[in-house]
């Protein structure tokens, strides 16, 4: 699974992307975020307020109950501010 982080979420975590295996027992976006928060204070700080965390799987917006697959590209980012 490929994870991509953007904007202040990327800055707080400290990396722009990483590749990892879907952890055992993590089947949904919500579970992935909970698991990521256990990986360190940088992750916890970035993902603390999930109201401000948007998720895309394979470049489409998904809700937190979306089920993940091994080869997914998962993007995590704040609400967008383009235009």
């Amino acid at each position: 699974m490929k994870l991509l982080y953007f904007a202040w979420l990327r800055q707080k975590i400290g990396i722009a992307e990483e590749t990892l295996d879907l952890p055992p027992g993590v089947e949904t976006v919500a579970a992935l975020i909970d698991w990521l928060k256990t990986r360190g204070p940088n992750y916890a700080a970035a993902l603390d307020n999930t109201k401000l965390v948007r998720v895309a799987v394979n470049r489409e917006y998904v809700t937190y109950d979306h089920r993940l697959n091994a080869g997914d590209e998962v993007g995590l980012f704040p609400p967008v501010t383009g235009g």
Partner: protein
Amino acid sequence: MIRVQREDFDPGVELEAMTRGKTHIGGVTSFTGLVRDMAGGTAITAMTLEHYPGMTEKQLAEIEAEAHRRWPLDAVLIIHRYGELKPGDRIVLVATASSHRDAAFDSCRFMIDWLKTKAPFWKLEATDAGSHWVEAKESDDAAADRWRQS
């Protein structure tokens, strides 16, 4: 047509190319977004636009397709820049062409409203006191909600 690019663009050239040879077009509506020199009373010295390569293009293409589904359009154009910009610089151009004036206006406004809440871009504003990420505005969500279909 969708383009995500670092370089500036010339709205005149783009609008001309959009309608050239299509003499059934009656009107073209466009919106050009520019970097403002102030935000909340603070002077902006630069603005950096980050995006999600691949997803950004995909989302813009979906907005283009949705505009075509909803209105009788002869041409659609979205150009959005990324990278570091200065006050006064162009950020985005959205334009729609139709034989019907109302369709051109409604669809153009729809596209910029949806783009602002769906296209993965993030603005980092630099000021003399440091830089900060622009927060999403509730008014943009409200503007996008106008176009939700039940």
